């Protein structure tokens, strides 16, 4: 009599379920229980990490803002706006346009009408409200001169600023050494920011390592037993990494929310006050920054745990 063929799928699925359940209980459940049990020693580490991650997030956003400022300035550094009088005649403007266009130091010239200037201003955060606040168009027409070599900016400025068609109040956008000064300042800020971030990282890693060290100490009997009954290394170390990740994840979440909240508030405040506190920072950028802070918290917590385990737990 032919017997029934038992399909092997069910046992395999059952095995998978058993392994998953054991992993969940021993790795994640054990870590969560231990984390909750050690909340007293973990809380200071969690708060310190959250504070440090928040500061890191804000430093990161500041760096992003400064990078945007630098990029804008770099692109504008070799662009000279020659502002024209409102009553300048078309013939005179054309003559100046032609002189500049044929100058070997000039890469190109573009005529920007008052309407174009207004339209351009309306794309800059804060300025649309300012533009709408007056009845008349406050932006002058201009000749935008792209200079080949940034060192020739002064000479081109001197060439045009006394022309009759040029606005005598504010002839050009030229500011001697402004870009170089900005670059020097940004470099200094970047170096200081990196040093500060490094310091914050070091403090955060140290704080987390101490927290994990105390968790290892509290569970030393359990660790000894696990090692002696033949638990694999990752089975022994895993719960501590998860525990570190929980601390890091919670710290990161708190810091990420605060980072997002502060950045979004700055964007909203800047929009209301016709000023731009953080060029390039939008609500989306703030959300991305917040998410990155959460990820950084997770990585910091689990990474610090791994580092501690390597130092304080024998194989």
């Amino acid at each position, binding site marked *: 009599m032919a017997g029934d063929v038992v399909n092997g799928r069910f046992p395999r699925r*059952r*095995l998978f379920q*058993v*392994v998953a*359940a*054991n*992993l969940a209980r*021993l790795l994640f459940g054990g870590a969560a229980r231990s984390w909750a049990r050690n909340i007293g020693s973990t809380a200071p580490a969690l708060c310190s990490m959250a504070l440090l991650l928040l500061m890191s997030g804000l430093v990161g956003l500041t760096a992003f803002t400064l990078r945007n400022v630098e990029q804008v300035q770099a692109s504008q550094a070799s662009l000279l706006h020659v502002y024209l009088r409102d009553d300048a005649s078309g013939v005179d403007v054309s003559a100046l346009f032609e002189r500049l266009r044929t100058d070997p130091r000039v890469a190109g010239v573009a005529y920007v009408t008052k309407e174009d200037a207004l339209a351009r201003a309306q794309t800059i955060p804060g300025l649309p409200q300012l533009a709408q606040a007056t009845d008349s168009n406050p932006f002058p027409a201009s000749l935008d001169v792209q200079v080949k070599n940034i060192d020739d900016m002064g000479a081109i400025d001197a060439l045009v600023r006394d022309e009759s068609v040029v606005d005598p109040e504010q002839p050009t956008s030229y500011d001697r050494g402004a870009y170089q000064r900005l670059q020097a300042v940004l470099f200094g800020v970047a170096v200081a920011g990196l040093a500060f971030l490094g310091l914050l990282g070091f403090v955060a890693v140290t704080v987390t390592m101490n927290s994990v060290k105390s968790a290892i100490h509290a569970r030393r*009997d*359990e660790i*000894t*037993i*696990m*090692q*002696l*009954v*033949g*638990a*694999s*290394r990752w*089975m022994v170390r895993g719960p501590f990494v998860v525990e570190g990740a929980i601390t890091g994840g919670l710290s990161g979440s708190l810091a990420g929310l605060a980072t997002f909240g502060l950045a979004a508030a700055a964007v909203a405040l800047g929009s209301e006050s016709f000023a731009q506190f953080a060029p390039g920072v939008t609500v989306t950028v703030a959300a991305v920054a917040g998410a990155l802070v959460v990820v950084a918290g997770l990585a910091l917590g689990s990474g610090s745990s791994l580092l501690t385990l390597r130092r304080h737990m024998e*194989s």
Partner: protein
Amino acid sequence: MSRAYGSRVAVDDVDLTLHPGELTFLVGPSGAGKTTLLRLINREIRPTSGEVSVAGIPAHAIKASRVAELRRLVGVVFQDYKLLPRLTAVENVAFGLQVADLRVSDEEATDRALDALEAVGLGDRGKSFPGQLSGGQQQRVAIARAVVAQPPVLIADEPTGNLDQDTAWEIMDLFEDIAAWGTAVLVATHNVDIVTRLQRRVVTLVQGRLVRDQPAGQTGRMAWLATS
């Protein structure tokens, strides 16, 4: 095998083979190297020179990543039991099974843990926490945990050190039973009375050296007593 800590030699050129089904006592004065020898077998430490082989696995040479595999072949019993106080007796035994092998389901682990507890005479105390058990009962739970995975080797370091004489005899009876199942059992002890009366194989260490290996039934005066 030999093991030195700096200039101090804890185990000095010891050549020892444990046989399946054999209960062996490891005796010697304090500091003779008994615990070091047990730790070498369980690969808690490596020998400075020589070889340690457990069921064909070279404990002296394996990588750290394979130590867990070796330890599943060696059950360990301690003087201080080393039970987890938050877990019941049956959970302590099942915990040992499951952390060593994730494929063991809760039901299977519980069944096997209850069987092991039954075998050590604690079938009715499975739900008790260690704090609710006497020293002898806690040691029985520890023995159940050590043998539940049926390792070929069982080592015990002063397992009766914290127990009264009657309880110590009960524990020794258990070790005899475990050896009778085919396990190689090595018990480090200071209990002269038990060693002399049981008449099992006795290995004597003095200052790290194996000075006598007396077969079962030929246990005479303890050599180490003369030097301690």
